[in-house]
Structures are given as structure tokens and as C-alpha cells.
């Protein structure tokens, strides 16, 4: 037997290795100048991950893609096979990302279709990821075609989102909303809004509640200085607080969406978490590290692609600013999209607060549970995971912090979702579950600096267009939006709110 020499650590470790640049992998992104697909590499430097690309015409460019190499490397193990849609709209021709619609090379179906029903908006946010031209309102016929197309491609849909522009400015808003709500194949309809109409019109919130609509309320912070940098002039704080009050009074199930820009509101993450914890009608919180596309791509300054917020930066800030409520280890990458695009944690309501699921449930063992939706479905995977967890915790209760409290909460959850006096329909059970579990998401959109082809191939957040195409969100924003025939023509007259 040949005995190989064993290398001593001193032979294979390079002094100051952590400070040196290390090649990680090849990638393919966009040239930030001409937006052509170009080859690149991911390199690790100073504990962070950077994307470096080489454009034949415009030379080298570099951007930060992960603020924590440990998070980045671990996230790559969060992979599961995607689900393909029932049909595609475009053939494979020029190669990703130039065949979008979806083409058969795409590796994930549409988890969350977004329908932009208008490009009118009453804000002109410096950080906006789209470029509103104030010249388009979706027709009833167009929405009908989109909804039919979505059902044809997906069969049934967990959620669709009506967006804009500001969707509540559409003159036929409720007519369009009712069309979506009436579609029996669609379980939930949400709207993305800046909240100005919710703030000024309590009856509008009541109408949303009557229809069971979910609201994604854009709210980056609770203080005006940060909000004005991101959203422009006006007393945004007062408007957002009125919107929150009106939504709460009407009982509208709400998600807070916070765009986080480095040096602007990255110190406000804790107050958003506090808002989620303190108000029952807020079911989830979505942090979106700022991406610099659309209006914001051209207007937001200063923007240094080497010093931006990434998912692990948001997670770290949540750990530091939440007073112990959240830890870095409470968050997990989402495996059904690309793990660099989403992270999340679920929070179980207990008698005196919330406990993040990963503190008692080994979510990494049950990746099927992780999905980019606010509701945990009581399916086979979830039931199996919960039953394993209950048994594990019960047999080792003394070793799990708050074990008894968590078991009591799980029992209460079962009693509410499976009451002894009557059987519930699945949807009713899900609604009860919404009051017992909250979710925090971190969704990293890509701009021309951070765009990567392998991420876009697994994108499950798609814009649904009237021509039948489903456009992966970041491909559309970076490469297709300015060619969308709906928005061609002269820029209309904006009606900007400046109170």
C-alpha cells in the first residue's frame, strides 16, 4: 500500500488568504453600458462575492453580488428542481436572456405573475425600478386575455399581483380587480400600491376587504428623511400611517414592502420588523435590496455597484436591529427560485410573541415547505415536517429553548385549523393559518450590474403581458421593458403627489 504524505496545514494555507481574491465560478451577465450578454467570473474578496464581467466594447465592470461569502456558498446548496409551466410562449432561439416569454429553457414556472395595469403613477420615486411614461391603461379585454393565458399556462395559481405604475389610479380599477377575483383558478389577488389612495379613501380599503384582496404596501421606513430620499418630496410618513390605519380598520390583509438602499434606510430594518410584529393585519414583510433599473437606474445617486445592499446584508441588519427577535440563522435561501434571489423566514405566533420556525423546525430538511408565498399550505410535506418536529421537540423538550411554549402554540394552531366541532374548507383553514404564521422575505432584484443568466433562468416572479408572454421580472426590467409596445409613444402628463 502506498502511503501518501499528509500535508501539514502550513503547507496548504496561504497567509492572508481571506484578504486575497479567490476565483469562485464562471458566470454570464450584462455589460452595464450596452446591456449585451457578456461572460464574467464570480470572485471572493474580503468575505464578499463580486461579479466581474468583460465587455469587448466597454471593458471590465464589477459589482457586489453578496455581502457575505458564507451565506453565498451555503445558499448554493439550496437547490430543488423547478416545475415547468403547462405551455411556453416563445421558442429557444438566441439563447438566454434573449428568448423570454417563457421559453423551454426556463427552469421554473410562474409562482407570482405580476400584471401591470397602468403606467400612470402619482409618485416619481428616485428609487423606482420601472420607468413610468404615464401613457397606458390596460383594457378589460387585455386583462381578460392575460388571465385566460395564465390559467392555460399554470392551471391554478396561488396568487397574482396587480401592479403598475400605481394600479389604484386606473379608472376601471375595481372592474379589473373583480375580473381577477372572479377567476376561480386564482386563489389570491394582491395589489402593489404606494398607499396614497388607501391613505385618503377609507372606503376604498373597505372595498378591498370586501373582495378579500391582499395589499402589498410599499413602505421603506417610518421616517420622512429616508422616505424622501427614496420616494421624493411630500409627507410620506403621514400618508403611510394613514394608509396603515385605514387598511387595519378595514381588515385588509397586508404585506409591507420595503426597498432598502445602502446608507439611506438600511438602519430602518428593525422598525419595519417591529411593525410586522406589532400589528395583526400585517401578515408579511418583504425587503427588497435596491436594484438600479428604470427611473432609479438613471436618477438615484450616489450609486456605487461595489457598495450595495444584498440579501445577507439585510439579514445581518435584521439580526442587529431587531433586539434579539431575529437572528441570521433564522433566514434561509428559497430553493425553488435561484437561492441568490430570495431568502425568507416564517414566524410562529406564540402566546407572547413570535418564534422563527428555524429555531424549532429544521427547514433545511424540508425544502418543499419553503415557497415564495406568505401562506404555509397544510400539505404532505408540511404535515410530515410538523409531525417530525413535534415528536423531536417532545422527546427532547428540555434541550429546545422555549420548547414547551412552542409545543403549546403548535397545539393551539392545530385546534384552530382543525376544530373539533366542524370541518373546514381548505381556504378557510389557510385563512386561519395566516393569522398564526407571519413571513419575512428578502427579494433581491437584479440590475444591469448584478444580472446573472443562471439566476434569471430560475426566476418565478413574472410579468404577464397581453401578448401572452410571461417575462421573468429582472429580464423584463433590464432588457425588454423599454421595447414593450404598450408603452411606446409620447410620455403622458404625470399627476404627481407632493403634499
Amino acid at each position, binding site marked *: 500500500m502506498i502511503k501518501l504524505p499528509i500535508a501539514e496545514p502550513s503547507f496548504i494555507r496561504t497567509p492572508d488568504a481571506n484578504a486575497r481574491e479567490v476565483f469562485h465560478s464562471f458566470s454570464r451577465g450584462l455589460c452595464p453600458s450596452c446591456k449585451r450578454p457578456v461572460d464574467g467570473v464570480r470572485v471572493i474578496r474580503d468575505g464578499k462575492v463580486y461579479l466581474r464581467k468583460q465587455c469587448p466594447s466597454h471593458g471590465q465592470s464589477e459589482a457586489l453580488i453578496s455581502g457575505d461569502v458564507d451565506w453565498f456558498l451555503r445558499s448554493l446548496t439550496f437547490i430543488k428542481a423547478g416545475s415547468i409551466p403547462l405551455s411556453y410562449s416563445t421558442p429557444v432561439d438566441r439563447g438566454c436572456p434573449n428568448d423570454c416569454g417563457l421559453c423551454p429553457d426556463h427552469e421554473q414556472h410562474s409562482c407570482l405573475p405580476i400584471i401591470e395595469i397602468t403606467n400612470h403613477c402619482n409618485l416619481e420615486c428616485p428609487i423606482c425600478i420601472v420607468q413610468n411614461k404615464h401613457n397606458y391603461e390596460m383594457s378589460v379585454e387585455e386583462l381578460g386575455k392575460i388571465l385566460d393565458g395564465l390559467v392555460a399556462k399554470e392551471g391554478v395559481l396561488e396568487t397574482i399581483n396587480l401592479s403598475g405604475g400605481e394600479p389604484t389610479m386606473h379608472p376601471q380599477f375595481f372592474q379589473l380587480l373583480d375580473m381577477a377575483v372572479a377567476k376561480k383558478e386564482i386563489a389570491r389577488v394582491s395589489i402593489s400600491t404606494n398607499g396614497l389612495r388607501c391613505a385618503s379613501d377609507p372606503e376604498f380599503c373597505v372595498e378591498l376587504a370586501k373582495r378579500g384582496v391582499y395589499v402589498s404596501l410599499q413602505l421603506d421606513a417610518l421616517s420622512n428623511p429616508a422616505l424622501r430620499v427614496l420616494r421624493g418630496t411630500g409627507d410620506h410618513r403621514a400618508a403611510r400611517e394613514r394608509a396603515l390605519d385605514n387598511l387595519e380598520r378595514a381588515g385588509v390583509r397586508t404585506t409591507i414592502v420595503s426597498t432598502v438602499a445602502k446608507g439611506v434606510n438600511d438602519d430602518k430594518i428593525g422598525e419595519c420588523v417591529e411593525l410586522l410584529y406589532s400589528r395583526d393585519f400585517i401578515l408579511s414583510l418583504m425587503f427588497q435590496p435596491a436594484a438600479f433599473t428604470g427611473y432609479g437606474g438613471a436618477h438615484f445617486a450616489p450609486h456605487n455597484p461595489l457598495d450595495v445592499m444584498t440579501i445577507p446584508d439585510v439579514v445581518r441588519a435584521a439580526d442587529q436591529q431587531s433586539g434579539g427577535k431575529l437572528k441570521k440563522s433564522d433566514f434561509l435561501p428559497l430553493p425553488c427560485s435561484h437561492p441568490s434571489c430570495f431568502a425568507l423566514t416564517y414566524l410562529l405566533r406564540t402566546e407572547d410573541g413570535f418564534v422563527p420556525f428555524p429555531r424549532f423546525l429544521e427547514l433545511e430538511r424540508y425544502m418543499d415547505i419553503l415557497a415564495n408565498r406568505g401562506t404555509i399550505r397544510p400539505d404532505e410535506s408540511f404535515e410530515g415536517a410538523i409531525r417530525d418536529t413535534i415528536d423531536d421537540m417532545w422527546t427532547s423538550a428540555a434541550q429546545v429553548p422555549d420548547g414547551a411554549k412552542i*409545543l403549546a402554540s403548535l397545539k393551539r394552531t*392545530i385546534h384552530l385549523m382543525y376544530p373539533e366541532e366542524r*370541518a*373546514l374548507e381548505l381556504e378557510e383553514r389557510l385563512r386561519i393559518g395566516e393569522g398564526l404564521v407571519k413571513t419575512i422575505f428578502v427579494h433581491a432584484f437584479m440590475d444591469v450590474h448584478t444580472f446573472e443568466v443562471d439566476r434569471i433562468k430560475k426566476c418565478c416572479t413574472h410579468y404577464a403581458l397581453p401578448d401572452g408572454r410571461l417575462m421573468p421580472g429582472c429580464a423584463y426590467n433590464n432588457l425588454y421593458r423599454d421595447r414593450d409596445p404598450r408603452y411606446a409613444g409620447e410620455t403622458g402628463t404625470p399627476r404627481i403627489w407632493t403634499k
Partner: protein
Amino acid sequence: MRLKGKRVLVTGGSRGLGRAICRVFSAEGAKIAFTYTREPESAEKTLSELNEGKAYRVSVLDVDGTAAMVLELESAWGGIDVLVNNAGISQNLPLALLEEADFDRVMNVNVKGTYLTSRAVARGMMRRKSGVILNMGSLAGERMIEAPIHYCASKAAIRGMTEAMAKELSRHSVRVLCLAPGLLEDGVGKNLPGYRLTDYLAHVALGRVGTLDEVARFAAFLVSDANTYMNGETVVMDGGLG
């Protein structure tokens, strides 16, 4: 009209299978009295489906209330011919979360309640040397299936109680039977997740769950005068579970 003139008491008759039994028995010509504990509106709905009915808000664990109800029915009707012990509950709890109070509650309602009501009603039946007691069991008490252990234990206990009671009361010409349905369109089975229902149905020869009316119609036969030679049996009705 298989139950023409029969005087029937059904426990837990305001919803689900209990309501179906009341309705079908009434259509077969019986006078119906039923108990309920929670929703008066549901009891009203059951009453509205009966030709002749009385509703009593009394728990099967309320000994005095049950005695008063039986006394009132005996006075009004001159006797009770049929008792259907249908009231029952279940809780979807794994062993780890199943505490003593949970176990006691299910056993109390399902087992002790059956015993207490039977005892109150059997007294008159024994005196008149006539009567039928039908206990509602469950497949969960007959087969090794995934269901809460206290519920399964309670339904297995009902089977045992049925046999002992049948033996003891046979000398008074009172028959005692147990009907054990599989999953039905309503009731405890309705809380099953879809994937578990699919798995269950894959093993059912008829490929579907039972309806409440199917069970109620068979129950009507079991307690009728057409059925004179069954006693102490537990009849499983599950569409052919393999």
C-alpha cells in the same frame, strides 16, 4: 315507511351524520327527538327538515338534563323505541400533544356519553321489553389507520360496550348494534388533507367516500322491525376498504 310510529332519540342531531339520521328516520315515519350542545341555528335547521321533531339542548355528559329529557319524552310519547348514540367529537392531535385533559374529553363525550345516555334510555326499554340502541362507531375503531389515538380508542371502546350491552340487555329483548362507517363526505374525515384522502380512496373499492344519507338509510334498516336477528354486531360500512 320502515320506521312508522317509532319513537327515536338521536344524540348530536343538529349537524352532519346526526342530522341526516334524523331526516331519513323522519322520512321513514319516525317521531324524532334529538340533542345538541352548541348552535341553536343548526338545531333549528334540523327541526325544519323533520315531520315531527323535538330538540333538546343537553350534553350527553349532563346526567340530570338527560334524565329530565328522557322523562319528558317517556311522558309525551309513552316510551322510546330507538336510541341512536351519535354524539361524538375528535381532536386532530398527535400523541406528543395529547394531554390528559384532551384524552379525558374525547373519552368522556364518546364513551361515557354513550354509556350515560344508554343507561337513561335503557331503563324504559327494559321495562317494556322492547327497544333498539344503535351506537355510532367508526372505521377508526376497527382498523389500523392513521387517526388520533384517543378517538380510535373511544370508538373501539364503543364496539366493546355494544357487545357487552347487547349480551346484558338481550334478556329484556333490547337489541344493541354498532354501525362503523369509513370516511364520509362530512364529519371528521372532512378535515383530512387532500393527499391523505387520495391515498385512502386508492384503497376503497368504490373509490369514493360515503354519503351521510347512505349511512342514515342503512341505520334506518338496522333499527327497523325488518331487522330482527342482528344483535351485538358492529357493521363496518366503508365502500370496500382493502
